[in-house]
C-alpha cells in the first residue's frame, strides 16, 4: 500500500491507510470482551473498548486502546483517535485527547457520537517519525 501525505492532526507525517477488519486476535484480551473492537492492517492491530460500557448517542465516552503487532518498532508509538460518519460527511463535535496508560496501552478521552447511525473510528499509529498507519473500524450506533 502506497504511503500518502497526511493533512490531518499529524502534519508532515506519512500515512498508510489500512481498512479495518473484524478478525479476532489475542490483542487486547485484558479489555472487556463484550465491548472489545479490533482494527488491523499493515501488520498492526488495535484492540479498543469504551471505558464505561456501551457507547450511547449523545454521551461522552473514553476508549481504552491496546496496540499490538509489528514488534520491530522501538518505543511507544504515538496514537491519535478520531471518528466520523462517512455517509453524513461529518466528524465529531469534540476532539479526543490520547494519553499513554502503559506499555502500548492508551486512553482516549473526549469522544462523543451525537447521532445514531454508522460511525467510523479512525486510529492513527505513528510507527516511526513521520510515518503513520491509519486503522479504521466501523460500528452501527443505535
Amino acid at each position: 500500500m502506497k504511503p500518502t501525505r497526511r493533512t490531518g492532526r499529524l502534519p508532515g507525517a506519512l500515512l498508510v491507510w489500512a481498512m479495518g477488519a473484524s478478525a479476532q486476535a489475542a490483542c487486547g484480551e485484558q479489555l472487556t470482551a463484550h465491548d472489545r473492537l479490533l482494527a488491523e492492517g499493515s501488520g498492526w492491530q488495535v484492540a479498543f473498548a469504551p471505558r464505561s460500557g456501551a457507547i450511547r448517542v449523545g454521551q461522552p465516552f473514553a476508549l481504552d486502546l491496546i496496540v499490538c503487532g509489528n514488534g520491530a518498532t522501538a518505543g511507544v508509538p504515538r496514537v491519535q483517535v478520531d471518528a466520523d460518519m462517512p455517509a453524513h460527511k461529518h466528524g465529531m463535535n469534540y476532539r479526543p485527547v490520547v494519553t499513554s496508560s502503559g506499555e502500548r496501552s492508551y486512553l482516549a478521552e473526549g469522544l462523543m457520537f451525537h447521532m445514531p447511525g454508522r460511525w467510523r473510528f479512525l486510529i492513527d499509529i505513528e510507527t516511526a517519525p513521520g510515518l503513520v498507519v491509519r486503522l479504521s473500524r466501523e460500528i452501527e450506533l443505535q
Partner: protein
Amino acid sequence: MSAATGQLRSGWCAVLLLVLVSAEAQATPPIRFSSDELRRIQAHGPWPLAPARDPGNAASGKAQAIALGQKLFFDARLSASGQIACATCHVPALAFSDGKPRAGGVATLDRNTPSLWNVVYQRWYGWDGASDSLWSQALRPLRDAREMAGTAEHIAITVASDADLSCRYRQVFGSAPQTGAAAQTTLIGVAKALGAFSASLRSAPTAFDQFRDALARGDRVEQARYPIAAQRGLQLFVGKGQCANCHVGPMFSNGEFGDIGVSFFVRPGVVDPGRHAGIVALRESPYNLLGRFADGDTRADSVKTRHVDLQHRNFGEFKIPSLRNVANTAPYMHDGQFATLQAVLRHYSELNLERLHGDGETLLRPLRLSPGESADLAAFLRTLSDPRAQQWQAVRLQPCKPPAEQLSP
C-alpha cells in the same frame, strides 16, 4: 333475572362490543410499527429522567437554593431599570418562553427566548451554546446591556438590602451577601440560585410517553388511547422524516447544534455566527466549568468544555432544541422566524439545499410531505406536551427565618 337470561344479555353485550371494536378498527386501522421503528420509539424514553444537577453549582438540588432562585427569578429589581425580571421573558404560562419571535429586554434581541422546561438535561445553554452550565448562562441576561442590564454591585445591593433575600442567601451560601469589592461573589451566588431553580423545572410524562410505555409492555388498550394521527406522525418522525437523527433520546434532542438551512441574517448584511461564536465565547469565559467559579470536582462535567472542537462548519449552526412541550413554545427557530409548527414542517418539506453549507450535514433532504403527512407530524408533536406544565405555579414560600446567630447583636 335468571342465570340463563343474565348469560344471554352478557353474551349480546359481548357481541355488541365486538361489533363496535371491529367497526372502529375498520375506520382507523392500527399502525404496525416495524421492529426497527419500535426500537427507535423506545429510545425516546423512559420519562421522566432521574433528577440532575446544574454542573459546577453546589447549591443545585438544595430546596433553599431553589426557593431563593424562585424569588430572584420573579424579581425585577435585579435589572437596572427595575422593570425586567427573568420571568419577563421566561413566562411560566408560556412554557417559560415569551411567545415572541425575538426576546425583548431593554432592547429587542436577535434570538428567540428558549423554554426553560427540562433545561437541566441540556449539555449547552443558549442558542449558540456559549455556556456550559445553567448558572453561567444566568449571568448573561442579568448583565447584558440589552437584557436586564444589571451590574454586580447593583444586584448585590438589591439582595443585601432585602431582608428576605439576604436571609435566604445566607441560608444557601453560609454568609451574608457582600457588596463593594465582593459584589461579584454575590452575583455568582445569585446566578447559582437561579441555576438551582431552573434545574428544578422538569415536566411530567406526556401522551407520547404513555404510548411509548404501553408499546414496551404490550398494553394494547393503552396504545389505543393514543390518537391514530399521532401514531402516523410518530412513524414519520422515526422513519421517512429522519427527525430522530438529531431529535433523539428522551429529550428529543442530541444536545448539539445543526445548520438546517434557515436564514441566519439578523438584519440585512448582519449574520448571526451561531455555534462558532458560541464556542469562542465559551472558551474565553471565566465562568465556564474549567474556571475558578465552578464548585467542586468538575472533571466529569467539564469533559465537554475541554474537548469541544471549533470547526468551520459551526458557522450558522444553532442548538437543536428539545421537542418536549414544543407545541407551547411558538414561534420557532433561533430567531423565531417560523410562527407555527406547520411552518416548521413546511421548511423541512421544501428544504433549500442551496442554502446549506458545503461542509454541512448531508443528511438533510426535502421531505416533500403531503398535507396529510404534515398534519400527522404536527399531531404527533402536540402529544409531546405535558398539560400540567401550563398550569405551573410558583411554590408559596414562608418568610425566611434567620438563624439564631443572625439575630444576636
